[in-house]
């Protein structure tokens, strides 16, 4: 009896998960297609200003309405998503590479190197990372690269911790002993046996970091420190829409907001499913 109850419960959970994964996958596919296909196919200028059309509510001609200088918001949102996604992907990738390298090096060398590096990680972690990000971005002129650098430099810490603990637990396995006995150098052991073993974990951390990095880009742009104001990014769109929101125009805020929330939730949903696959005991949680 208990067995039957348990099984039906399991099946119910599995099917909710399947639905969540398929919806997330569909959204991510749609987003990727939109940002890749729309700009080359639709020969419309997202920067085209038409003051006679300013702040029009959604209509068949402009499904998302227009902004305060008459630019089409649907087009701006797609371009903004493109920039935000690019920033998110590159920043997550750079952060993961830094984190993996630092974590693996700390664990592989051990001793003083490890202690020094990990205290450095603790020090960086003790500063709120948005604050640190603002500090880094403020040193450069507004642009895509400073934002990427700022997000990447503040987000490798957790990956370094994950990779370090993983490598530490692997280091004492007999197969590492066997490799040492077979004449492998420290470098060889690290790149041949240790790093490949942490790639799934690091890859997962990278994917989970993409939505997080997108939110950081938006936060920095919203604060006026991120991308230059003319460049469509989700953060910039929300920032420029702030004034019109007070006047009761809801669409310039709502649509970029949804464009930020829905794709990031979808990516996080996919990453959550992946995490359940590689470490089934941990329940999926949203890491934003």
């Amino acid at each position, binding site marked *: 009896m208990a067995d039957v109850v348990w099984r039906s419960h399991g099946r119910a959970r599995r099917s909710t998960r399947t639905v969540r994964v398929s919806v997330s996958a569909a959204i991510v596919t749609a987003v990727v297609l939109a940002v890749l296909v729309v700009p080359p196919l639709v020969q419309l200028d997202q920067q085209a200003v038409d003051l006679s059309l300013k702040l029009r509510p959604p209509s068949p001609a402009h499904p998302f309405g227009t902004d305060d200088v008459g630019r089409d918001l649907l087009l701006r949102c797609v371009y903004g998503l493109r920039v935000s996604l690019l920033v998110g992907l590159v920043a997550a990738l750079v952060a993961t590479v830094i984190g993996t390298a630092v974590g693996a090096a700390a664990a592989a060398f051990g001793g003083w190197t490890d202690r020094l590096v990990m205290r450095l990680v603790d020090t960086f972690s003790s500063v709120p990372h948005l604050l640190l990000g603002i500090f880094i971005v403020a040193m450069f002129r507004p642009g895509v690269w400073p934002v990427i650098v700022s997000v990447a430099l503040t987000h490798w810490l957790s990956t370094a911790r994950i990779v370090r603990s993983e490598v530490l637990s692997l280091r004492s396995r*007999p*197969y590492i002993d*066997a490799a*040492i*006995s*077979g*004449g*492998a150098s*420290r470098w060889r*052991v690290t790149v041949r046996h240790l790093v490949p073993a942490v790639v799934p974990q690091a890859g997962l951390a990278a994917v989970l970091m993409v939505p997080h990095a997108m939110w950081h880009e938006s936060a920095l742009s919203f604060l006026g420190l991120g991308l230059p104001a003319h460049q469509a990014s989700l953060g910039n769109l929300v920032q420029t829409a702030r004034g019109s929101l007070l006047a009761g125009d809801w669409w310039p805020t709502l649509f970029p907001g949804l464009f930020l929330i829905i794709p990031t939730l979808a990516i996080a949903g996919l990453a959550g499913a992946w995490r359940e696959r590689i470490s089934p005991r941990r329940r999926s949680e949203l890491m934003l």
Partner: protein
Amino acid sequence: MLELDAITAGYEPRTPVFRGASLSVAPGEAVGLLGPSGCGKSTLARVAALLHRPDAGRVVVDGEEVRGWRHRAPRHLRTAIGVVFQQPRMSADPRLRLRDLIAEPLRATGRRDEATDRVAELARTVGLTDDLLGRRPHEVSDGQLQRACLARALVLRPRWLVCDEMTAMLDASTTAALVAAVETYRDDHGAGLLAVGHDRVLLERWCDRTAQWADCVEQQPGA
């Protein structure tokens, strides 16, 4: 000679697993070391394979005293000693196919071009088919994996072999096959063997002489 002289070793500096263990193996000789579970014989095997730094004592390999352990041991000393562990699952990198697993020491020491021939030769010695060589560790049995681990230990033609409970996880026929493979190798290369285990019958039939753990150590804390 492979000499272990008054070795004290363990994992906590103040509470070593054993004190003053001494044992020596002459070239071409097979020595069995018998001891109860948990006495520290595996730790001594790791010291002999230069994989664990002892707290005190000397290890001398072919007249050269060992000054560093693990990566700090010179490569020619590390590779002079082949080592086979008890649990094949834990001793094999799960991402490598058996073929690559066996060839890995050759690649790590820059002798890549010998790999194909040497792997084929060893596969015959330990009894692995071509099909098995193309599989990953999770696709073979413990016995098949242990055959590959033995082949890996032999691939660099070590002058010494350290087998730590090599056959404890295996059935009788695989045990016989692995012991036969070790003996073939020793006949061809005149290598010395230190076989650590708790199976008196096996070690007494396999080795030239067997040593009792209690006779090798000066003092066993808690004993």
